[in-house]
């Protein structure tokens, strides 16, 4: 096994283990911290793909900003394992069934997708994730969707201010 393969399996194990721990932990604060571990593992995958910019932006935006706000809300609401409402057994059963159906759809989609069958991952050679190439692609080929998504963010921000302003 080469170094990259070892790193790949290590990161994948870490990602899967942490995401299971997100679901299994009783304490919401622990769940958030495990989710941060998942983001770190995914950023590691980005670095393996030579997409350093995506890796660090994933950390800054998701692990650094959004998860801090999650943690904020959970700490302020003081959620504990005891205060979490108990669900009925048939609620759990329906949850398992619908989740299983979704998993089946995902697996069949990935298996049948023609775009990714028989293709190799660009390990260490791909360069679209570098800041220069990504910036060029975003501001020339995809400039309209890019600007539209920024308008979407602006409207979300205005909405948050409107909801937060109670007078």
């Amino acid at each position, binding site marked *: 096994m*080469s*170094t990259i393969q070892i790193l790949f399996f290590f990161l994948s194990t870490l990602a899967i283990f942490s995401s299971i721990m997100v679901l299994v932990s009783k*304490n919401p*604060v*622990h769940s958030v*911290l495990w989710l*941060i571990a998942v983001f770190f593992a995914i950023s590691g995958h980005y670095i393996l793909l030579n997409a*350093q*910019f995506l890796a*660090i*932006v994933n*950390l*800054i935006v998701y*692990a*650094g*900003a959004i998860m*801090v706000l999650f*943690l*904020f809300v959970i*700490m*302020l609401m003081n959620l504990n394992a005891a205060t979490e409402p108990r669900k009925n057994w048939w609620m759990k059963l329906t949850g398992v069934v619908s989740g299983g159906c979704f998993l089946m759809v995902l697996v069949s989609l990935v298996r049948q997708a023609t775009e990714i069958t028989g293709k190799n991952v660009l390990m260490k050679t791909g360069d679209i994730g*570098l*800041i220069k190439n990504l910036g060029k692609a975003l501001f020339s080929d995809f400039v309209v969707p890019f600007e539209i998504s920024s308008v979407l963010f602006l409207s979300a921000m205005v909405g948050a201010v409107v909801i937060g302003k109670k007078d």
Partner: protein
Amino acid sequence: MTLLAFDWILLLEKLILIAIIVFASLGIALYTTFAERKVAAILQDRPGPNRAGPFGLFQPFADGLKLIMKEEIIPNTANKALFVLGPGLAMTAALMTCAVIPWSSSVELFGRKIDLQIADINIGILYIFGVVSMGVYGIMIGGWASNNKFSLMSALRGASQAISYELAMGLSLIAVLMVSGSLSLRTIVDQQMAAGSMWNIAYQPLGFIIFFVCAMAECNRTPFDLPEAENELNFGYHQEYSSMKLGFYLFSEYINMIMSSAVMASLFLGGFDIPFLDESTLAPNTAAILGLLALLTKIVFFVFVFMWIRWTIPRFRYDQLMDLGWKSLIPLALFNMLITGAFILWRQG
């Protein structure tokens, strides 16, 4: 020597470099605590610590020994795992910044050219930004896991302060990037060292001031030490901590100070550049050592300014702090960005 298609000598070289830089940072931080007490003493016209050793020079070791020897107390109602994780995270996040700072040019040892920088990654500044945003977790987790209302309050304060000032910090960094056109710290320093070019502070005076204020806020230094406001919150987010865990929190503040000084020196004051001297005329090893000394001088200067401000200006009120961040610094940083962009366009014709 290659095994697993991997240069093991390089790994060894980097490990030694990491060990040297981390221990040197810890040593400098140790004496920064001493310097803080001495500077405070001078500014308040009193002798300061002068009992342990000549001029009180062994005082930091006495302080460290005291912290280590104290009883380790974990509160009954605390969340044990996270209570221990908090100080560790604070310390790790503080030390991680040193990986991308170019400490000096390269030295030649045993026929190998060794760059005095752990990793010259092409996203250097963003890496620093990411590490800074991780630093919040040490405070938040520690404050929450203590299961103390005052700790929680100050942890939330610290986190919201850090998030607010990160924005202005990022915006002032963008202006620097527009001038330099590169995210790698070594490239930025090399550009400032090149003949005929000035330090970035000459192109970005406003950006420098914004960055300086934000760095002070990110380090939780007075006048921005709201998370530790004694008269409102008893002692702050590390109230329940004792022994070396408390020491880690206090110590990480000093390491943060040194690292942010190093980043500011690299971004705005030419890093390891010696003014009015062409380094390429010197032998490479001499140039590297002189450059390291120049960078250390700049760091010491910044650390002194941090302390000077701490013992001169009183603490902000919380709403004043938020007003300064959101209503002054962010618009100023945006304005700075616009001016820089317009200027670059005008220069290009």
